[in-house]
């Protein structure tokens, strides 16, 4: 495709105004957006077949997810853990590692935060919050960093290992929350002891959303800088392109793999900490809410680019925030959003086949000398 376009272009004479790099960059933005749209259209057809109005569905999603100030608050609060969960997929992905067990790091991060509150409840507020954040990041970082280490040291497939570890993490959480760390006062839903009031993380003034959102956005920006603007990120991208070439260049592929997986895991662990400290108030089974799995989709939609994760996470947070209203108004099951996510995911992966081959903006490029 691109070969033909390249050959045909000089004869036709390119009257365009873009450099080839710019044209390719715009294409790299348009293609995932088109895939997102295609997935949403496929879901609309699916709904129409079931006799439900797709228009009503998307209007409700808009209303419940983005229509009012209240719905924005709700959406952004859900976006906070999704941003951090998506980074747990995106950072290792730049090295060519497909990590899908972020859920485990979120859960353990939350449990670590709850454990700190149980073990040293006497700390003053800010110190307690810092201790929780450190414990959560360490738990998540060790968990997912361990996957990177297994990959590097033993060649264990990281995709399967990370998902198995997610199941183990949830079992570990249940074990701790119902045993060692259980607050005897929590009867119906076993939980850790409630956080001291001063340890609770408050809202960003004027926004009504907890500080996890700000941390998530900062983490996304920092990850983008790390990947695109530092030598470590450059080395990671080379490893992701071709491990053998990177090793011949003397790049520490193994250390990079461990470092990036650990960093991603630490972010996911922080997501768990914010769920505990800003939302639930204690660690319990609500931590396994599926944020880790939606994060996979968000990272792929954003093509593992830290900045693109921000709008992608907000979009899917809006979809998930609208789930309740859609269920009630359209009498659709709660798994509706899961079907939509599956369709969008498939459409995005299908668009990979067109990436860099379907040069639909070639006609806008400047004539080459």
């Amino acid at each position: 495709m691109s070969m033909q376009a390249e050959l045909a272009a000089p004869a036709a004479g390119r009257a365009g105004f873009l450099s080839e790099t710019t044209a390719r960059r715009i294409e790299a933005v348009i293609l995932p957006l088109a895939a997102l749209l295609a997935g949403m259209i496929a879901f609309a057809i699916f709904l129409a077949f079931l006799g439900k109005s797709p228009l009503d569905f998307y209007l409700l999603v808009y209303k419940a997810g983005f229509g009012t100030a209240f719905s924005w608050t709700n959406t952004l609060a859900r976006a906070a853990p999704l941003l951090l969960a998506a980074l747990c997929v995106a950072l290792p992905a730049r090295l060519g590692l497909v990590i899908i067990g972020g859920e485990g790091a979120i859960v353990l991060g939350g449990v670590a935060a709850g454990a700190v509150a149980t073990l040293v409840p006497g700390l003053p507020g800010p110190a307690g919050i810092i201790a929780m954040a450190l414990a959560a990041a360490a738990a998540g970082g060790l968990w997912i960093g361990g996957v990177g280490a297994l990959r590097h040291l033993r060649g264990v497939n990281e995709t399967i290992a990370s998902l198995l570890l997610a199941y183990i993490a949830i079992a570990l959480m249940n074990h701790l929350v119902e045993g060692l760390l259980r607050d005897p006062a929590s009867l119906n839903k076993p939980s850790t002891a409630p956080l001291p009031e001063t340890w609770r993380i408050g809202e960003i003034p004027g926004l009504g959303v907890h500080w996890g959102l700000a941390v998530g956005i900062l983490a996304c920006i920092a990850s983008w800088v790390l990947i695109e603007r530092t030598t470590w990120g450059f080395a990671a991208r080379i490893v992701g392109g071709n491990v053998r070439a990177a090793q011949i260049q003397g790049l520490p592929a193994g250390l990079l793999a461990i470092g990036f997986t650990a960093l991603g895991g630490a972010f996911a662990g922080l997501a768990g900490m914010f769920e505990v400290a800003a939302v639930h108030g204690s660690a319990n089974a609500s931590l396994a809410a599926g944020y880790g799995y939606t994060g996979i989709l968000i990272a792929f939609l954003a093509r593992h680019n830290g900045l693109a994760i921000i709008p992608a996470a907000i979009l899917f947070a809006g979809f998930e925030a609208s789930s309740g209203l859609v269920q009630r108004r359209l009498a659709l099951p709660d798994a509706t959003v899961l079907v939509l996510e599956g369709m969008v995911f498939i459409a995005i992966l299908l668009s990979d086949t067109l990436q860099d081959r379907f040069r639909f903006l070639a006609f806008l490029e400047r004539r080459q000398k």
Partner: protein
Amino acid sequence: MTDDIGLWGVPLAILGGAIRVSTPFIFVSVGECLTERSGRINLGLEGTLVFGAMSGYAVAYHTGSPWLGTLAAAFAGLLFGLLHGFICKLPRVNDIAIGIALMIFGTGLAFFFGKPYVQPVAPDLPAIPLGFWSSLPQVQAALNINVLFIAGIALAFAASWMLKNTRIGLTIRVVGDSADAARALGINVNRVRLWSTAAGGALAGIGGAYLSLYYPGSWNEGISSGQGLMAVALVIFARWSPVNCLYASLLFGGAGALGPALQSVGVSSGYYLFYAAPYALTLGLLVATSSRTRAMPSAPGELSIIK
């Protein structure tokens, strides 16, 4: 003779559990084995398993026949396999990522359509009471063997024989070991992989039907706890041999039965840790059998996860 057999109940319950719990593992892992021998990996079998469980249960409920349900589950699995195989035919599409997407999609569809079937009761698949000679209820319970378990054993041996001795088996192996060699022989690589993935999907669908129609024997959203995924890991441990998949499945079934078996004799602390035993076992075996420096012996050369 009293019914109290004390600690002997533990190995007996593990044996019974191994037989009951292993059947879905057998079907999914033998199916995945065929897919992987053709050089592709389908991580979406977890979604296929859940959708198979739902569709099998729904059809069995409406028709009153668990066998029609099993057939429907196999057909649904076949469609999921075809979808995976078809998408992976396109250039530059990552089979692992497609598997993850299909895992979400299959699970989502199953929950979406399965909502009305959580309450109704569908007929179960029949079991053969091979423990009739014993007066002990524990022995009878352990040896109450489902027809699909026997079919699974036959399937594992048949698949091994097919891979080794038939033209189809040879074709699958050539495609899995070297796509270039296969093309040179005039084999349509994509078509072989498409149908190998479809067959794997159909078997995973049957595994799902076993879950909802026999053990645990009802449809709900928590029906699969990652069996589809563990089965994929199990194929690596089984070194891509269907008969080894059978043995590994039995081992996993036993590990999965450990928690409930210990609970039945009064060991209840650490229940959740025993629940994690199959996952930990899978991971431990993966770590033990993987290697950084050399390709795994008998691994299909085209497989993306070992490159």
